[in-house]
């Protein structure tokens, strides 16, 4: 226990160790948060979901915090609906019990320098035989009222402002967004800032008929992380990629270093043909091209991340480090406490697992921590090659999507940078901690 305390005290002397630990704890916190708030199946469903899940989001929207750093304020997307009360709805019955009128209004402040991509209203109405009727109008900050549309609301109706030909004709332009947002006084057609109001007045012609509406503004910016080509909120893969990256990195590092050590210990202890065999396997493995085999497995068999993890561990066990461990085990095999254990009749497995391997833990820990980043990046590399797990939202997958869509050519930097920065933070966190651990546990390095 005191040894552990001492190590921790030593660790705190290194700023890089503190920074690294803080980063790792932070990533762990994100992972726990992601796993609790979004269950695995839900994450997969959302990530694989198409238009029906993500219709509220604009395509290729940058994160909303871009406005903080930019002098030109771009519109931020939002969605409001009557079903959860974010948009007000009042129903007033008339003298005729069959007929009642429904008023839905939503006012919002618009203080941006650009016009949105699109405005949409999704109507859901319930009726038996007679359609309900809705008319939509738009009130600008300077008090003008623009009639948008009058239509019969079938059970599901989507109204897209800029796609509506009647509206285009009425406004005498194809650029509906310009027309309803522009300041008529301004020569540059800059959007008029202020409070806009959307007024939907509906009439139902049956006793139990209802109308609900959802109003969606597709701006140029969205949420904390932006969206991709398929309107998916990038926050999902960024959040959910954290536990996946950590799990892959930690499991691969742990599996590889532990198994390498155990195999090296067994080989050294038994010697003879066991040792010889392990040596030969290591040599064969050194000749095999690691990444090429991983790519082959990914292309031919399965792209499941857990299979990849298994193959990675398998190929990394018999690496060069087995020779390093072997050299050290060779020395400790001859030491007197092993001699003593042998004398009192300890079994081979007892000697290996209780005497040989624990001696190596100080060497193991820094190596383990330092190897995590390379595995995290390996997972991302595979995803960038298009061999990422097809169902899981991961950081590498986001980079791959962005590359496939030419995000860098088209200036959508946020799409590549967000996962890249997370990868970098993860890599540096583990690398810095491992670096400090290495110096603590290998006193030979401490002075230099």
């Amino acid at each position, binding site marked *: 226990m005191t040894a552990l305390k001492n190590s921790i005290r030593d660790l705190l002397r290194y700023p890089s160790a503190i920074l690294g630990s803080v980063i790792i704890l932070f990533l762990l916190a994100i992972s726990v948060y992601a796993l609790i708030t979004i269950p695995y199946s839900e994450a997969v469903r959302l990530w694989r979901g198409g238009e029906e899940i993500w219709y509220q989001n604009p395509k290729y929207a940058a994160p909303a915090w871009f406005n903080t750093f930019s002098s030109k304020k771009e519109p931020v997307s939002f969605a409001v609906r009557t079903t959860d009360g974010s948009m007000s709805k009042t129903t007033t019955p008339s003298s005729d019990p069959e007929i009642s009128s429904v008023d839905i209004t939503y006012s919002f402040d618009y203080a941006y320098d650009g016009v949105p991509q699109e405005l949409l209203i999704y109507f859901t109405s319930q009726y038996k035989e007679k359609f309900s009727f809705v008319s939509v109008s738009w009130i600008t900050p300077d008090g003008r009222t623009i009639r948008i549309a009058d239509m019969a609301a079938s059970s599901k109706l989507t109204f897209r402002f800029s796609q509506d030909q009647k509206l285009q004709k009425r406004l005498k332009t194809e650029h509906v967004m310009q027309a309803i947002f522009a300041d008529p006084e301004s020569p540059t057609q800059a959007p008029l800032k202020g409070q806009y109001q959307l007024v939907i007045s509906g009439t139902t012609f049956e006793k139990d008929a209802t109308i609900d509406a959802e109003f969606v503004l597709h701006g140029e910016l969205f949420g904390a992380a932006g969206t991709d080509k398929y309107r998916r909120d990038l926050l999902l893969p960024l959040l959910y990629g954290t536990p996946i990256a950590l799990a892959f990195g930690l499991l691969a590092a742990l599996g590889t270093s532990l198994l390498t050590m155990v195999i090296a210990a067994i080989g050294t202890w038994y010697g003879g043909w066991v040792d010889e065999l392990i040596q030969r396997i290591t040599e064969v493995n050194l000749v095999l*091209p690691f*990444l*090429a*085999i991983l790519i082959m497995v990914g292309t*031919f068999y399965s792209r499941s991340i857990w299979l990849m993890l298994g193959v990675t561990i398998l190929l990394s066990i018999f690496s060069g480090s087995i020779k390093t461990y072997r050299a050290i085990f060779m020395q400790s095999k001859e030491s007197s406490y092993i001699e003593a254990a042998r004398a009192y009749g300890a079994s081979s497995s007892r000697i290996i697992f209780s005497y040989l391997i624990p001696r190596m833990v100080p060497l193991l820990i820094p190596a383990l921590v330092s190897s995590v980043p390379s595995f995290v990046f390996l997972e991302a590399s595979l995803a960038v090659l298009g061999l990422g797990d097809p169902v899981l939202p991961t950081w590498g997958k986001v980079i791959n999507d962005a590359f496939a869509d030419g995000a*860098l050519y088209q200036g959508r930097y946020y799409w590549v940078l967000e996962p890249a920065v997370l990868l970098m933070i993860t890599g540096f966190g583990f690398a810095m901690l491992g*670096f400090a651990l290495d110096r603590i546990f290998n006193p030979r390095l401490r002075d230099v």
Partner: protein
Amino acid sequence: MMVTVTIAVYLTILIANMGGYVDTIMRNEIRDNTTQAILANPNYRSLSTEAKAELIRTKIATEENRLGLNQPFAVRSIKYLRNALTLNLGRAINMKSDQGSKEVRLILLERLPATLLLTGSSSLIVFFASIFIALSLSRKYGSFWDKVTIAFSPTSAAPPWFYGIFLILIFAAVFKILPFGGLVDSPSPDNPLEYGLSVLKHLILPASSVIISTIFFSIYNWRTFFLIYSSEDYVEMAKAKGLTPRDIERRYILRPTLPTIITSFALLLITLWTGFIITETVFLWPGLGITLFRAIGFYDTPVIVGSTIIYAYLLAITVFLLDFVYALVDPRVKVGSGGGGAQ
């Protein structure tokens, strides 16, 4: 060592064939293509249905025979192995070189210069720069630049393609001064000088991404290595004798570490061969890495095995040669007692 290479190549063959699954894919493809070709050919239209079916059957058999598919997989894999070991790399199944040849040898040779240009330039710069910088850092360790190098060494946790993304973003997308990827401008200039300059311009980004990703760690490693050696007693002795720092470095630090330096240089030369699969893919650099990646996508076993076999051979030869070089540069290794992994 030969046994090692043989086993490694055989394993690659097994994996690349998925234990015979690729054959099924190829058979189906042959059947489809042959049937289509015969049914679409106007010369065969007059034949009866039975005659057509017979013709299709014989054509399929010939085609399978040509590709060696009618032999059992075990036999075929041994044949592949023999061909591979004798460097008879055979013909690709689907891929072609730019000149239209299907010879695996030609496909690989065509891509070799591009890969060697990228890996060679970047790795040599990293190797010599890091040894040189490491030596000067180890001379005055604890200095500002020494601390900077240590602080930056974790940056090597990220692979080259990762820095490639940032470099593309900064220099190609934002400043638009360097190209996004590729080997030369399109259309390629006729003048050899302009051609060379254009290649050089395309080389800057991929090469720098490789350099950035490896150099700090490499410097750090060499620096630690030199420091450990410069605290040896005989170095202290040399200092006490009053030798110049340059002499100490050359005769007392570099000389005993020469075997290690040579080993890592040799291993570096081998890794040049495989190229950087992902870096080449990200930069669309037409080298061996991207070829291997495409070959895997096309299930083109001969090409995959071909590049693995050459890698395995080079590694084996290097390890073998290293034993001799050790004996030459390191008097502590006597011929006969050394031997290492070679058998």
